[in-house]
């Protein structure tokens, strides 16, 4: 558990990450992801509770340093020195470790070879982030911590980073990452923990969590002015194949098992009642929907 003043940032968190696994901590901003990962990284001391990394608890001095030799850490907000060249930053970070990749090797790992002589300040957001991950990978770590590695990046840069993480895992590395992109977690992680207000509210593989919704599709629709009524919601709940109905300010969201049955039924129902659609979309159920189902809130508005 960790408190900051009166605010309990993280409370009652109990999880185990296995070797070779990619584990994701998911949640909106302020859920306690960063606090959790920094406790695990030994940068924040918890007020109570126990942490074991690679089988050892955090200790000061030589044991702590020996443990750090085996970890790769990327922090959320680090800005590396602007005036240094990419190669120089990596040479600096590699000097902290007893064993490490050469600068050439690590540049190749993160596809920054041609930027070796470029100053940090000239790099794009995606390149800076790859450099930050490179600093974490330089020591050939067994366990890699990534705190929101792709936040604020464009889709292409995000995919490049995912590729780097995949390569690291393919070589047998363990990854613990935080993100507020559910899509990222679904693609990268073997298991995820969804956090909200400092607590884990769901834990499992992305498939299991989505399956817990009891349905594999989500239908979002909105009606023209005055089309909505309590009566309609009740009818929808009774409809075949619908497992959950949620109404929000911008429309209705149905969780459905069989889209090919539910959708025509919905359209027929609406036509029968003489109300008109102003919006209709469907998508495969995702971790976003799991979060909404668990908290009643959209992940991205929080």
């Amino acid at each position, binding site marked *: 558990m960790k408190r900051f003043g009166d605010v309990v940032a993280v409370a009652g968190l109990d999880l185990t990450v296995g070797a070779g696994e990619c584990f994701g901590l998911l949640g909106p901003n302020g859920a306690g992801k960063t606090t959790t990962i920094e406790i695990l990284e030994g940068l924040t001391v918890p007020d109570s509770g126990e942490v074991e990394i690679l089988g050892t608890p955090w200790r000061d001095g030589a044991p702590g340093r020996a443990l*750090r030799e085996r970890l790769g850490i990327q922090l959320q907000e680090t800005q590396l020195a602007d005036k240094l060249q990419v190669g120089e930053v990596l040479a600096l970070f590699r000097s902290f470790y007893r064993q490490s990749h050469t600068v050439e090797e690590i540049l190749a790992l993160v596809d920054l070879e041609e930027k070796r002589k470029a100053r940090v300040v000239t790099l794009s957001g995606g390149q800076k982030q790859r450099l930050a991950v490179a600093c974490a990978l330089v020591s050939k770590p067994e366990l890699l911590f990534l705190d929101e590695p792709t936040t604020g990046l464009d889709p292409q840069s995000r995919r490049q980073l995912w590729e780097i993480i995949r390569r690291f895992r393919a070589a047998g590395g363990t990854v613990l990452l935080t993100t507020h992109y559910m899509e990222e977690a679904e693609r990268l992680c073997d298991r995820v923990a969804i956090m909200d207000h400092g607590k884990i509210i769901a834990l499992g593989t992305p498939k299991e969590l989505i399956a817990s919704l009891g349905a594999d599709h989500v239908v979002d629709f909105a009606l023209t002015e005055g089309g909505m009524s309590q009566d309609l919601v009740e009818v929808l709940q009774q409809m075949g194949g619908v497992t959950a109905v949620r109404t929000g300010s911008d429309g209705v969201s149905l969780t459905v098992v069989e889209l090919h049955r539910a959708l025509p039924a919905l359209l027929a129902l609406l036509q029968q009642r003489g109300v008109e659609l102003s919006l209709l979309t469907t998508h495969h159920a995702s971790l976003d929907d799991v979060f909404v189902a668990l908290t009643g809130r959209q992940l991205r508005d929080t």
Partner: protein
Amino acid sequence: MYQLALSRMREFYREPEAVFWVFGFPLVLAFALGLAFRNTGPGKLQVGVAGGPGDSALAATLDSSPRLDAAVLDTATARLRLRTGRIALLAVPGDPVVYRYDSTRTESGLARLEVDDVLQRSRGRKDLVAVRDDRVVAPGSRYIDFLIPGLLGMNLLGSGIWGVGFSVVQARQRKLLKRYMATPMRRSHYLLSFILSRLVFLIVEVVALVGLGWLLFGVAVRGSFATLAGITILGSFSFAGLGLLVASRAKTIEGVSGLMNLVMLPMWILSGTFFSYARFPDAMIPFVKALPLTALNDALRAVMIDGAAVATLGAPLAIVVAWGAVSFVIALKIFRWR
């Protein structure tokens, strides 16, 4: 640690402004002050001769002296020049000759003596006692000789505190310190890297300032260069320690700037950089002498001006080292790493 020190240096020399303030500015300052206070010996005294009968003869007589420069002036001009100090004395021809001057001005007093001497001799006065001049030039007695060691001390203080303080606080602000904490880097190595990189810049600073003083103003180092090097190294370590202490808690650049000024301003004024601290009241002297910059300046002057040996500098050097060591230890204890 070598890599840390190396990146510290790279960050520094790629910041042209910082380079100017640390290296360029003291040189410019030394040059300007040296020019203003250069000792070219007393120049010719400017005297005026009031227009009237016999004015040009009197002016010619006075002008014949190698130490006087005389010109005939009309009454209004003469009055104006006398008042503004452009002439030291106005001689009004006649009987008696009248010397008009301000007796509180040193120059005017000198002019009075010289003018009277020239005038009396030209009328046949004979010296009654034989005299001989024996001119000496005491080395190291000029203002520039006093100034260069002071500027050197001030420069070591400034670059130590600015150089260390700003980069520590910047690294803290950018969460770079926290990032370093996430590696097996030893904390003491991080702090020591500052001191190591200071050492390299120190060589440039000292060579530039002492070299300029020697080339332009003939300020020689009378003691051994090894002693001078030793003292500057101690001073630089000490101020780097002080810089770390100043930066050990501050979270923002603004915060640390205030602290730096708080530390440096009193020393600039009190520690005898531009003028001797002997001018302060006696009660303040022990306090002033306990300041690290005072001690460093004293030691530097002792070596550069008096050619003192290391052995005689125990007391000031002990003060310098004590400040550095105590600051470093406290800084290490209270340092905010994140």
